[in-house]
């Protein structure tokens, strides 16, 4: 085996507030493993992205193997394994949004932010050099009636036009 095992230099741990939240949510599930998704969201909110230290910590907390955590992290596109911008902009490109010109939305954002679109395993590609924005395409955001839509962090923006996009971005 040529590869050396990764050395975790700065271990991750929940801060006081998140620990309280974790303690509360773990009680809602029949088995600890079932709390995987909310725990990972909590950890990602604190750490910014899912580092090996985070995976190890979450595995310990939920009493599962590290691989089980890695499995979930790579399955769901909402978990990031590399640093992302302060604002993550998710552009829906599923059918109804596509029919309502999500490509125009995406192109407008690309030009405005001067960045490419992130690939699932290469988020740096869609992140602006100043670390402010990460631009990515996502599947359905469940708001087809108000297409095209984007999400900026946790906020949904609907019925987009270039002007609306400019306004949203400029107000950030």
């Amino acid at each position: 085996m040529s590869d050396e095992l990764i050395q975790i230099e700065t271990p991750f741990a929940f801060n006081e507030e998140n620990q309280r939240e974790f303690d509360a949510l773990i009680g809602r599930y029949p088995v600890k493993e079932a709390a995987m998704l909310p725990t990972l969201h909590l950890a990602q909110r604190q750490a910014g992205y899912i580092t090996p230290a985070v995976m190890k910590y979450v595995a310990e907390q939920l009493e599962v193997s590290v691989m089980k955590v890695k499995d979930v992290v790579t399955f769901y596109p909402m978990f990031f394994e590399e640093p992302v911008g302060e604002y993550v902009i998710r552009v829906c490109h599923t059918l109804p949004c596509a029919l309502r010109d999500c490509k125009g939305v995406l192109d407008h954002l690309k030009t405005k932010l001067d960045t490419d679109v992130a690939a699932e395993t290469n988020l740096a590609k869609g992140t602006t050099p100043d670390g402010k924005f990460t631009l990515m395409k996502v599947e359905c955001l469940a708001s087809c009636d108000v297409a095209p839509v984007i999400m900026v962090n946790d906020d949904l923006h609907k019925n987009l036009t270039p002007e609306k996009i400019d306004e949203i971005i400029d107000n950030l």
Partner: protein
Amino acid sequence: MAFVKLNDLEIEVEDGTNVVEAARQHGIEVPHYCYHQGLSRPANCRMCLVEPHVFFPPAGAIVPDRQLATGCTTVLRTAPPDRKLDGKYDFIVRTDSERVKKARADILEFLLVHHPLDCPVCDQAGECDLQDYSHRHGHDKSRYLEVKNVPPKKDLGPDVLLYATRCVVCTRCIRFADEVSGTGELGLVHRGSHDEIDIPRSHEGVPLQVLDNKLAGNVVDICPVGALISKDFLFKSRPWFLEKANSVCSGCSVGCNITVEYKADGVYRLKPRFHEDINQHWMCDDGRLGYHYVNSDDRLQLPLKRVDDALTPTHWADALATITEKLSEIETEDIVVIGSAQGTNEDNYVLQQFAHDVLKTTQLGLFGHLPGEAHKFPQFTIEADKNPNTAGARTILGSTNGNTVLEGDALWEKVSSAKVVYLVSGAPERPLEDAEKAALESVDFLIVQDVLPSEVTQFADVVLPGTTFAEKDGTFTNSTGWVQRIRKTIDPPGEARVDWEITQQLAKQLGGEMNYHFAGEIALEIAENVPGYADATHQKIGDAGIKLADSTQ
């Protein structure tokens, strides 16, 4: 028992048997990838689809069910009397209808969508379920014209490589690591058609954990395709050139059932063989990779004799003459004969017979005590005693002729006061403690029978080249009282000989009347003379082994 109509057969099967097993019991193949007898059943590969039949009231007839079902999870049970089909069947299922055949071929086409055409360089070729099922159940061409996924080849652990392109994502390996070894190193990364087996790694690909548990090699065995590959066997031989013999692992006292795969020039690999009560489907990597000493260039190939303080190769006649000369001038009470927990029951039987009949001594010892670490897994145990036949050697050496078998300190005390010691070892890696060294050093004339130069042979005056488990027939008794057969595969190197034959030759030189021709003949005598071993003839032991009545033996 459930009464089942399987195709055109009427069969009885135990309640709880699934369709795949029921069919297998009657010589009918239901192809499958994800299903494995020793693991849980996710039914994800869809290869084992079969066609259950149900009663359809509107038609008043028994018809094929609307959907095909996975044979691995379709469990056969006795139905209540009012639910019998045709008034008698508990279940009706077809594995050979056109619908089933088409489903199989189509599933196979899907499984092969991203599969590379690298069979010519694939280690699994010749023992590959993709090849075999394609041949028996598949289409002869693919309709897929898109670009294939080409995930990278990955290093998973000390002995396991993943050729991810060949993987059909059956997840047997993941379930093995979760359920049998309980170590959980394996999982799936990414999603959908980009699913890949992997160990946990950082985003950059540096592992957090590797597949290095002591059962890791089993994932290579259960991989139905050429995705998981043993580095030890990689590119060594096409599997169809290997001869196979059923045997027993000599790595510890568990006695895992194995298949020794070999060619004339040596042993190539060991594979576990199913035994319900001993090792199920598995074996550990210590045993699996522990065969290399058999092929070693350092193997003792000629007798050695001490000339001017150095061990010098000689021929058998000279070595035996030297021993005979020495033994004939020594008093019986100055001789100690030491058997081996690495040797077979037959080796040890002949040895004690030699001690009793020819040397007229009852002073026997057992060169055992090869301690290592025990490892316990959820569904597997590795024993701390690294000798395969401690139980057998102890019983056989001591059970007849009123022998006493000395072990440990008592043995070494005896050795230090002996003039001649005949020590059969076969455990060349066993380190000697200082007291043991001192005892051996003090022996006037030390005869050692072994397979490799070792700490013991250093003290020897004559070294006789013996044989490993791969070069002889015989039986081992494991720690739970199972007597099982090992079989000769390759010839011993050079002029090395089977251990009991050497002992018999010595006996003859000294005027003994021993005349065994093959190991099975000795086993017959063991069956007759050793308490508890009455059924332990080679014929009765066969491939399944027999359990001694008194399991403390």
